[in-house]
Structures are given as C-alpha cells and as structure tokens.
C-alpha cells in the first residue's frame, strides 16, 4: 500500500486537479458573462442599450440573474418522476462541462521544474471523445422532457432530440473530411499542424460552413431554436422547471455555446496559434500565455457570431429544419468528403 502511494506522482495529480478546477471556474464565469454579452449585443443590434443599471455598465447583471434564480421557489410537479426530473438538467450541465477536458487551451508552460501542458488530457481520439459527450447531451433534454409529465414538454423535447441527432450526422461527416486531411483526431496534434501550416478553414471552407451550421443546431441556437422558442412552445422542454434547475438548463446552453466556439476555433482556426507570429522565438511561458489569449479572442469572436446570427435570422420551422439537416447538409458534407478524399489521393501520389 505504501509503495503504491509513493509511486503516484502527487505533483502531477495536484497539477491536474488545480487545472480542472481552474478550467471549470473559467467556463462558468465565461458562460455567466456570455449571458450579459448576449443581452448587450442583442440590444445594440436592435438600437437599444441593454442592461446598464446593475453595477457599472450593468456588469453585475449576471450576478443579479443568478441570485434571482436562487431565490425562486423550487417546484417539482406532483406526478413527475423526481429522480429523473432532477437528473435532466444535471446531465445537461455535466456533458457541457465534460467536453472542456480535451481542448488544448495553450502550448506547454514551464514552471517549478516541470512542463505543464495546458490541456487536461490529450487523448489520441480527441474529436471522437467530444462527439461522444455531445451526443450524451441529448439525454439531458430527453430525460428532462419526459420527467416533466407534460405533453407539450415531451413534444418540445422530442423535437430538440431529433434536431440534435440529425445535425450530429452532418457534423461528423464534415469532420471526417477534416480528419482525412490532418491524419489524426487528436486535438493537440491538429493545432500543431495548423501552427506549422495553414489554418484548416482555408483548406476546408465548405466543411467549416457545414460544421458551423451544425454547431448552431447542436446548441439549440437560432435559427434552430424551435425546441425552446418562447413564442412557439412557451418553454418547450423547460416549461416545468423553475429556479436553479432551469438555471442549469439555460446555463448549460451557454456553456455549450462556449465549448462549441472553442472546438470550432481549435479545429478550423488554429486553436492557440497566433497568426503570422513564430512562437518559437519567444519565451516558452510567454508564448503559451499569448496563445491562450489568442484562443480566447477567437472564442469570443465566435460567440459574437453566434449572437450575431441569432438576432439576424428568423427561426426555421420544424420541417424546414429537418429538411435542411437531412436533405441539404448531409449531401453537401458527403460531397465535400469525396472531393477531399480524391484530392488527397491525387496530390499525395
């Protein structure tokens, strides 16, 4: 027993735990201020001002919203399945956070005589792991919709689930083309390849567009937000939820948005790579720090794009949505895959 305890690299364990705590708190804080950013961006695009009363420039508004949700009454419907009712939002939150484990937030840093890699784990099936966890997110919605004991919630949840499943297919097909080109599903190696070569968006523009559209559908964002549209289904699958469970659902959506932006930035826009700058000429820690900042700038830009599109386009009707997913995006992604495969064969020979 003692030998086992001695053989464990405690510094490594501590480092990873601290990093996990850091990443989770960063995700939560960023998701919180994404709600603030959403309201401000929505306002300025609609010739309004957005919240500017809570704190300077309204910066304490997310705190006020969170406190409001805490103080509301927790209602659990009488005939619902209590365990599943509470499990639904928890699952949504867990799967939203799990995906942040494999994203490379920066290059290596050197401190205390060790190299710390700014990625929680570098599994060599990186992208497949992300996909697996995102598919589990569907469970969160379905379980919540079923456990509400409400026909309309169930319909909303069914729509959301089928939408997410359909668009995952096109996303996977766009990714296959990308993996064929990069040769590895590991996220860290993809970023390193982009550091040395060109960003993947220049090589796979159609794949990027398909991936972006599918990311909108995965996060249930307009124009694909029929599942939770206030005018259509009142609350959709979140109708019966109040207080913090509703807070979890809404928050999980923002965390999903943050993670999707991070994935898009990592896959297609070079991750922590700073364009036109050769990082090997700088101090290692400085390069890693600047890379992480560059990644956050890209993520911020993509979150802005999410909101920009939300306040521009009206939402799709459900049949138009399914048509687009199955009859529009999957053929485009397939053709993209075939062309990529053909070009790789011809140019490598």
């Amino acid at each position, binding site marked *: 027993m003692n030998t086992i305890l001695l053989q464990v690299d405690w510094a490594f364990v501590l480092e990873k735990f601290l990093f996990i705590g850091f990443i989770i708190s960063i995700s939560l804080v960023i998701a919180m201020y994404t709600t603030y950013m959403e309201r401000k961006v929505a306002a300025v*695009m*609609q*010739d309004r*001002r957005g919240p*500017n009363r809570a704190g300077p420039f309204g910066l304490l508004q997310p705190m006020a919203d969170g406190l409001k949700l805490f103080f509301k009454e927790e209602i659990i419907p009488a005939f619902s399945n209590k365990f599943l009712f509470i499990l639904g939002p928890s699952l949504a939150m867990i799967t939203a956070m799990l995906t942040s484990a494999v994203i490379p937030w920066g290059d290596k840093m050197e401190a205390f005589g060790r190299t710390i890699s700014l990625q929680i784990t570098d599994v060599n099936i990186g992208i497949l792991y992300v996909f697996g966890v995102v598919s589990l997110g569907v469970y969160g919605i379905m379980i919540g919709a079923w456990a509400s004991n409400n026909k309309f919630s169930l319909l909303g949840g069914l729509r959301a689930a089928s939408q997410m499943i359909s668009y995952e297919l096109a996303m996977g097909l766009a990714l296959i083309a990308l993996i064929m080109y990069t040769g590895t599903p590991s996220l860290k190696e993809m970023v390193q390849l982009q550091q040395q070569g060109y960003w993947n968006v220049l090589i796979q523009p159609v794949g990027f567009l398909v991936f972006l559209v599918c990311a909108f559908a995965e996060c249930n964002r307009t124009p694909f937000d029929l599942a939770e549209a206030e005018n259509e289904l009142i609350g959709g699958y979140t109708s019966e939820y109040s207080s913090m469970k509703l807070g979890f659902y809404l928050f999980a959506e923002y965390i999903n948005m943050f993670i999707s932006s991070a994935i898009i930035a990592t896959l297609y826009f070079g991750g922590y790579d700073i364009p036109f700058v050769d990082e090997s000429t700088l101090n290692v820690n400085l390069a890693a720090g600047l890379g992480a900042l560059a990644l956050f700038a890209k993520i911020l830009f993509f979150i802005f794009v999410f909101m*920009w*599109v939300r306040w*521009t*386009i009206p939402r799709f009707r459900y049949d138009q949505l399914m048509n687009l997913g199955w009859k529009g995006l999957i053929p485009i992604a397939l053709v993209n895959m075939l062309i990529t495969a053909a070009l790789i064969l011809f140019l490598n020979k």
Partner: protein
Amino acid sequence: MQLTSKAKPVDRRPMSIWEKMYIPAIAKGMGITFSHIFKKKATINYPEEKRPFSPVFRGLHILNRDEEGRENCTACGLCAVACPAEAITMDAAERLPGEEHLYREEKYAAKYEINMLRCIFCGLCEEACPKDAIYLTETFAPANYSRQSFIYGKDNLVIPHPKNDPEGFAKAKGLVEERKAKAKQEN
C-alpha cells in the same frame, strides 16, 4: 378585377441557385445587423434624462389658487358628476367671516378627495370645472404600497400658496419659464 392602379403581381418565380443557398442572403442580413451597432440608440437613460411632455398631457390633478392665494374651488360638484369613474368626492362648507383671504366665494370644499386608483385621467373634470379650479398636470402618479395612500386629499392636490412659496406657485402654474425669460430680458 383591378381595384387599384398600384397593384403589383406576386413574384412567384422559383428561387435561383444563389438564393437557395441562403448563405448570401444571410450574410447580407448580418451586415445590416452589424451596421446597427454603430447607429444612434433610441433609448434614453431615464431617470437621468426625460422626454418632454406635451402641454396638454393629462397627468396628476391639482387644485388651483388665484394670484392672492385664495382657492378657486367652490365645491359645486360638477367635476364629481362629470367623472366617468366616480373618483372624486367632496364635502362643501360655508366660508366664515374671517376667512376671505383663503377662499374666493362663500362656498368652498372642506374635504376634497380623488381616488387615483379609480381615476382614468380622462380630463373630463378639467373640462367641466366652471371656476378654473382643477387641472391635470404633467406628472405621473407615483407608486405606493397601500390602496389607502392612493386617495389624494386636499393636502396633495392644492398648489402651493404664492405668498409662502412663490417658486412652487409659479412652477405649478407653469410660470417658471416666463419668469426665466423675463429675467434674461432684464439682464
């Protein structure tokens, strides 16, 4: 049958390839939304800035005094009869010999109450009054915690006395702007 010369037939051509892709149209829409970020905002920072009211705005009531400070209202009851929501109630009293400086005529309103919760701010009382006594001003009715505090009595309604509070009297009568303009002319 053509009812108007401005009729335009509905455009039912099938979508071109450029239109079917949606992406160009979406990009154009996004450009328009983006340009709105830099345009002038329509909201103002209330309560630091307020929008001007029109001079005939029907807000809270006031009971008028004349220049010597005597109340105009004679408790004739025309406003109470005219009110469609039955919000005004009053008790009349006779002016005693020592009170000529307080009231204009021999009859005055000892108790005058307007229930702001019933009032619909229509202005019929203002139109009905023969003595130029009740006016609707430019203030909103402020919020309150109990129903009882919405019944405004004479202390809330009568405007300030010109001898005790000339500024308040002038403001209530809307004469502040005239005095400022006159002061500017003299200076």
